[in-house]
């Protein structure tokens, strides 16, 4: 084993892993993050904690991870290259690991253009592939990116994102291959609504045997309303929401749309369980964390293994 992390152990056991996410509050409100995390306790193996998601200032992922860790849960430290240079990133990785946080997700992050500080400087000192490589070298070589030796190197279980729906599609398997080459242990994908396209991407992944080199978690986001479905299709870059799905959501009365959204998510999980190479599910219920237990339960992903954490 490369790390002591719960996620690595779950994957090694052959069980499907389950993660979810918590967006930290837009204020110094410890109770908010604790409340959200508690809803997930016992239903997921680990909880992603976003890092200034959609380029809006929030409580730091690191600080929120510490609160979650204190609940006896396993946080996944998300970190974007947008806001920090390599010194700051490595400093936070040391700090997080010293607090017992041993899983992270390495991202480039949404562009500031989309957030509440469009006037901010973009850092992007390194990109997400180089970021993965840096964390891997910190762990496996015990070296900082600059080359110096680390005292007690952080043993992070390293995640990265993949978006099978962005363009150019033909490059998306190759992009995954680069992240694997850099040292990614697990992948969490963009929310999957176009299952056919995802399966086509997975065909390409299996053709190259990449599914044996990395643990791929399928991203699932339940839709609350048909409005949300339309918004995601039109406004969120790199999101692929098929028209049939929008029709299906629109076809049920407003008060039943949330239930329909949950049903769609559960059906997606059931279908994706059969896809060779899918090793787990990452359920991102945006500001709807209370629905995660129901989705996990109805999708047959309970009980979560207790012996690893």
């Amino acid at each position, binding site marked *: 084993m490369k790390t002591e992390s719960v996620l690595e152990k779950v994957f090694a056991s052959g069980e499907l892993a389950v993660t979810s996410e918590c967006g930290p509050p837009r204020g110094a409100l410890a109770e908010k993050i604790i409340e959200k995390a508690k809803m997930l306790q016992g239903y997921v193996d680990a909880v992603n904690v976003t890092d200034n998601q959609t380029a809006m200032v929030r409580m730091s992922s690191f600080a929120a991870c510490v609160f979650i860790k204190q609940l006896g849960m396993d946080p996944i430290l998300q970190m974007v290259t947008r806001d920090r240079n390599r010194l700051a990133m490595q400093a936070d990785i040391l700090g997080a690991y010293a607090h017992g946080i041993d899983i992270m997700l390495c991202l480039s992050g949404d*562009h500031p253009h989309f957030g509440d500080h469009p006037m901010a400087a973009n850092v992007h*000192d390194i*990109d*997400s592939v180089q970021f993965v490589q840096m964390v891997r070298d910190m762990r496996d070589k015990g070296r900082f990116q600059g080359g110096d030796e680390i005292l007690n190197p952080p043993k992070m279980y390293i995640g990265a994102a*993949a978006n099978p729906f*962005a*363009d*150019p599609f033909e490059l998306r398997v190759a*992009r995954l291959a680069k992240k694997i080459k850099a040292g990614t242990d697990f992948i969490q994908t963009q929310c999957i609504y176009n299952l056919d396209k995802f399966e086509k991407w997975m065909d390409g992944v299996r053709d190259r045997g990449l599914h044996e080199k990395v643990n791929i978690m399928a991203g699932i986001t339940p839709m609350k309303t048909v409005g949300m479905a339309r918004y995601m299709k039109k406004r969120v870059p*790199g999101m692929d929401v098929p028209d049939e799905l929008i029709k299906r959501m629109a076809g049920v009365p407003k008060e039943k749309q949330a239930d329909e959204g949950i049903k769609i998510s559960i059906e997606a999980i059931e279908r994706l369980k059969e896809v060779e190479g899918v090793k787990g599910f990452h359920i991102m219920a945006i500001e709807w964390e209370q629905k995660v237990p129901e989705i996990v339960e109805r999708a047959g992903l309970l009980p979560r293994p207790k012996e690893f954490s």
Partner: protein
Amino acid sequence: MITAERKPMEELIECLRPYHRILLVGCNECVTVCSAGGRKEVGILSSALQMAFMKEGKTLDVKEITLERQCDPEYVEELVTHIDQAEAVMSMACGCGVQEIAGRFKSKPVFPALNTTFMGASERQGVWVERCQGCGECVLALTGGICPIARCAKQLLNGPCGGSTNGKCEVDPDIDCAWQLIWDRLKALGLEDRYEDNIAAKDWRTGRGGGPRKIIREDLVK
């Protein structure tokens, strides 16, 4: 070329409000090509400033001069015969030219008339686009002749982010996704395999990371 755009008139008028006699200095290089600060633009701005002052019941005496290159001391020296008659200088060059004049004439206030924007190329008549950020360690050999540092909004060196849609950047549908362009070009060259070479983290010391830069050519230094 170095591209630039003229500042808003109100800002320029505000700078010059205390003065009656100025030198308005254009440059015959990049800013002439991008129609921001050549002889023609000097003439236009000169008239506009004088009219604006007249409207306020004042006069502004403008001496118009366009130098061959404002970033070169030997041309800036040509201002010597005019500088004493002027209370201030307004430069229509890029930031390099403005600073060259300020460095040469230490007791004379110098104001920029332009916002210097980027190193770029002319895409078509009246449209200029950024092409280079002067990082000091060119990667174009690795990326099919298309620069991801200058042309990707996140300066990604290892491929497109998850926001690339129909060949366009997530930041603005008018911006081409640099990595789509790179990929198309690698394919056209039969170099698709090269995409999978991971490009290592960049050493920014050759760029701004190392502080202000200088080139010393020993063979040319006298």
